[in-house]
């Protein structure tokens, strides 16, 4: 599972950009919104990766820690050496998912939820977010105006000149099948689809490991989803 972990880490071009002679000054931690909110220290992550300490890196891949970053990239702006802890995190998260390590942490397991929402939106609609998926019951923070928009969606979008789910250009237009096919082909050719399959595969293994199986012994992913939502 982790046999070539350091080699795999170093082959990501983003790491070359993100980490050059970190001097451990800690300004990334000082400015980091995630460090203010969670027990999170991007400085120590940069140091662990720079040291190529295999055990520490594996611990990170299996931990909640790497999932705390909010990707604001404030660290990049402040680093005196132009390093970027947020980008190091992106590399670690990719590796965590490729190896299945993400299923060992609560925050890591959430990748399955994100795949089911954002991933599905991308492949089926051509958008990361679609208004029909921002359901008021699961988004109470959106407030009563959003509830009104959601319940009167086609009227409200039409009034402001949008082209919701219709052919042709415009806001929130329907992405036609030719363009969606190109998008899907890009995911197949460039590894995006394989990556989705990998997240699915390890999530199913985790569901089985946790005893969430149907009558045929297959992973019960609906039960797993409900578990993740409550976890």
């Amino acid at each position, binding site marked *: 599972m982790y046999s070539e972990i350091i080699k795999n880490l170093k082959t990501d*071009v983003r790491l070359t950009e993100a980490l050059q002679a970190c001097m451990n000054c800690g300004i990334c931690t000082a400015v980091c919104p995630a460090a203010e909110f969670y027990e999170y220290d991007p400085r120590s992550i940069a140091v662990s990766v720079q040291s190529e300490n295999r055990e520490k890196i594996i611990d990170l891949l299996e931990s909640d820690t790497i999932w705390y970053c909010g990707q604001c990239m404030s660290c990049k*702006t402040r680093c005196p050496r132009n390093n970027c802890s947020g980008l190091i995190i992106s590399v670690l998260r990719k590796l965590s998912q490729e190896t299945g390590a993400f299923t060992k942490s609560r925050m890591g397991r959430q990748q399955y939820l994100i795949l089911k929402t*954002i991933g599905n939106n991308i492949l089926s609609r051509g*958008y990361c977010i679609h208004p029909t998926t921002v359901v008021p019951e699961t988004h109470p*923070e959106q407030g009563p105006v959003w509830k009104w928009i959601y319940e009167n969606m086609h009227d409200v979008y039409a009034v402001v000149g*949008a082209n919701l789910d219709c052919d042709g250009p415009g806001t929130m237009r329907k992405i036609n099948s030719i363009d969606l096919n190109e998008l899907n*082909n890009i*995911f197949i050719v460039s590894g995006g689809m394989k990556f989705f399959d990998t997240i699915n595969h390890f999530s199913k293994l985790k569901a089985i490991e946790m005893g969430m199986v149907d009558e045929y012994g297959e992973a019960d992913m609906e039960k797993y989803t409900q578990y993740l939502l409550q976890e």
Partner: protein
Amino acid sequence: MEIKSKIKWSEYNKEIAEDHFFFLRSCIRQNFNPGAEKAFISILKNNLKKDIFDDARHTTCTGIGYHTDIVPFETMQTMIARQFSLMTEKGYKNCAVSCITSFGSYNEILSTWKEFPEELAKTRDYLKKATGREFEIPENLSHGCDIIYKFRKEIAAQSNYKLINIETGEPLKIVDHIGCHYSKIFPEKGVGGFEYSKVLTEMIQAWGGQPVDYPERRHCCGFGFRQYLVKSNRSYSISNSRKKFESMEPFKPDAIITNCPGCNMFLDRWQYTLAQIEGKTYGGGTNGIPVFSYEELAGLILGYDPWKLGLQMHQVDVEPFLKKIGVRYDPELKFVGINGKYINEPLFTGCLK
């Protein structure tokens, strides 16, 4: 890398194309503020007489998928290459980007292709295999706010209203919030860099208002991608927005202006949520501080109908702001549907009932 001093950054300007834009839309802005993108195109075409092409074929850049770590870098590179291919096919060389996440992603990829030509070659190969397409790299990549900033004085010259309180004659106090991926990753891609960003404050000034600095002006709104998108992580998101509101509150701003679609929505919605949790509003009374994007504010001063701009889709009620600057509008049309038919109303607007 060129080291710029404090003074140089504060005077720093970037290259912004003059005309002929290929428009790249934002997933979040289309969802939550669809009227803003419509207004942006209209302002460029009808007010500034610019050429901007809106191609129905372009899709998400997958930036949110990338920053939630489900979309590999190679896939996002190829998706963005496809956008460039559509641009090339239509004969355009300048991109106008609506989304801040996309803007950061486009810049990250252009920088990667410059530093690592093998990544560019790989992307060309992937795109060709997947779609048969080829592409040129854009000559200029500007965010929508850059373009409105560039033409802020022309917009002021055509304006029907100014950001001035018509009762007191005083300029309105407006705080800005710059989306993190506008210039935190590549400061040289933002007007004024990151620390001394002036892309929004100079719009405020040009349109008669008074920009107000506040300590947490540069702090993230808290979107955090997975921190908001997974329900159980949302306390991260709201805590960051709360920090900003607490920081701007002593300055009693009349409005917040943003350049990022996500920030625009969060700063609006989190005021409502915080009021529901803590019973506190930041705008006095039961309302909050109205939040506008740069296109919405430009549209308003140019005399666009507030309900065509989609300002009824904000949770924080914008009407007190409209009255302050003297916008002529029909409050009866705020919540009507197609052809003026009545379609019910939200339970309430603002932050507290």
